[in-house]
């Protein structure tokens, strides 16, 4: 045991210098990793904007693909794909939103902790399933023997969206103060009226945020459209979502990129720009809503 020399000033020893160097090295390493991820996002988005911008025009957004498909075919656009994706996602949302909301209400308001635990597990497993497996399930159940239809994609997207909506909704239901429920009960109001009139409106912000994020995710899902709505006539516009496969944006991007050729790759970038624009806007809206809600929660 070395005695402490009280006459020496407190200067760092070699050991401390080494420890500080390690500290600095690891901190810079972590900062660099974060910078790399942001740089990657900027690189990807910049590539899309740079290459897609020249393809975007009014006719690209409104016209359909040229009938003579091929490497040399020029012109045309993704009009029917925009309509197809919008219809598929709209129907999917109409299915997933009520289901997600009902499940979230059951989880937070009625289920015992044990039951809620196993339903949460089921939702997490459903969320963890790859979209190709969900697509294959519906392909086996509905398409084999019958043919494709746009609405089958909506079913797949609804299964993908539901866990996300249920999750965000149940989180915001938990944030509704218990006092509100108690006060409503104390006034003699029944449980279902309290839930519908007090609890759900209080959590509406979370429901909307979750739904917007789910829509942003569903719109770009490609595995389901590849199996369930890939044989559409790409040069005509169809609204028959229940009886026909519909052309859609993810399929266009995939198809153009696999076909290759300068004109097709240019179309793929144009379609990617349209897609990423909606994804970014929806994410931005969801975040703005969320932060506004957080601020209100803080000030309460």
């Amino acid at each position, binding site marked *: 045991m070395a005695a402490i020399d009280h006459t020496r000033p407190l200067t760092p020893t070699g050991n401390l210098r080494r*420890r500080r160097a*390690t*500290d600095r090295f690891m901190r810079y390493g*972590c*900062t660099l*990793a*974060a910078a790399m991820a*942001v740089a*990657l*996002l900027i690189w*990807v*988005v910049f*590539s899309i904007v740079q*290459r897609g911008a020249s393809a975007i025009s009014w006719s690209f957004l409104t016209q359909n693909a040229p009938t003579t498909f091929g490497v040399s075919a020029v012109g045309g656009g993704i009009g029917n794909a925009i309509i197809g994706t919008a219809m598929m996602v709209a129907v999917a949302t109409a299915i997933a939103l*009520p*289901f997600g909301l*009902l*499940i979230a*209400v*059951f*989880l937070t308001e009625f*289920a015992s902790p044990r039951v809620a635990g196993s*339903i949460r*597990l*089921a939702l997490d497993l*459903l*969320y*963890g*399933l*790859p*979209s190709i*497996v969900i697509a294959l*399930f519906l*392909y*086996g159940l509905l398409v*084999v023997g019958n043919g494709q239809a746009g609405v089958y994609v909506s079913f797949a997207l609804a299964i993908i969206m539901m*866990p*996300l909506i*249920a*999750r965000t909704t149940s*989180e915001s239901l938990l944030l509704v103060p218990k006092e509100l429920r108690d006060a409503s009960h104390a006034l003699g109001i*029944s*449980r*279902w009226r309290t839930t519908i009139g007090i609890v759900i409106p209080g959590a509406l912000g979370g429901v909307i945020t979750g739904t917007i994020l789910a829509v942003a995710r569903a*719109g*770009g899902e*490609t*595995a389901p459209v*590849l*199996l369930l709505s890939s*044989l559409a006539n790409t040069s005509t516009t169809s609204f028959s979502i229940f009886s026909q496969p519909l052309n859609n944006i*993810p399929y266009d991007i*995939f198809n153009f*990129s696999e076909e290759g050729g300068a004109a097709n790759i240019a179309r793929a970038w144009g379609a990617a720009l349209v*897609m990423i624009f909606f*994804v*970014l806007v929806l*994410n931005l809206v969801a*975040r703005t809503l969320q932060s506004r809600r*957080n601020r209100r929660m803080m000030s309460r």
Partner: protein
Amino acid sequence: MSDRLGDRALVGLTAGASVIAVVIIGLIIYQVVDSASPAISKLGLGFLGHQTWNGTDVFGAATMIYGTAVTSVGALLIAGPLGIAIGLYLSLLTSGRTAAIIGPLVELLAAVPSVIIGLWGIVVLDPIMRSTIEPALHNVLGWIPLFGSPSLSGAGIFTAILILAIMALPIIAAITRDLFLTVPSELKDGALALGATRWEMVRGVVLGSMRPGIASACILGASRAIGEAIAVVQVIGMVYQIPLNQFANGATLASNMALHATDNSTPLETASIFYLGVILLVMELIVNLAAQAIVRYYRLPDVTSGAAAVAVDEL
């Protein structure tokens, strides 16, 4: 009276919806196994070890099981350390103000649809791989058989690994960040007060106590890589082989399902595609249940489930 009816109706309705969510999982498993049954009874377990897939009468999954294993492990080796580093940076090493800007940007990377990442892979990444990265790696590490002669197109297993790493990265980063934010400040402050440097605090207190959570975050990242179909089709080259050289072309379970499910050349092909689906389903269920088991066993905070990572959760 009507109130009692309303109470019952609401409970019944919400419980019914929840039951349907559970039933859907059962239905998915049943349908995929059922549609695969002709192939399962005809090809048996030999399917797993057989290498040929000719699209008409000979089917084997060995090349794709190899492809899925190699790409997801490779993606995890890259995205795991980087994701954890980003999680540490966002939760402990920077100001809240900076984290509030950088964090959402990292999460936005997860929102880019995979078909667009794949397109970017074909047009932007492939040429760079072919002209620069693969020759450089081959020159330096060529004595390891994994880094053999560079590919001619830039497409291949290694490019798929990088693309999958980009997809797993934001998931691992977001989950580990939320995890590290739950470490009690008493523990962190205690370590700093004892004279630990910031990194020693991170290593001793944060990484030490959060090891199971980090494992579960990495498993969920790998789960994303195992199941990705579209972007892999676009960049891996889709050739049925088991090359040691990672710059060569390959195929994965999910990518082959996406590319050939609608071929319908023979009934056996369709059933074999579903057989691939059974293998993928089993892998994903094991992986996801493992992640959930870790979360439950160690009573980790609820940030480690997949859905929470994507949800906006800066409450």
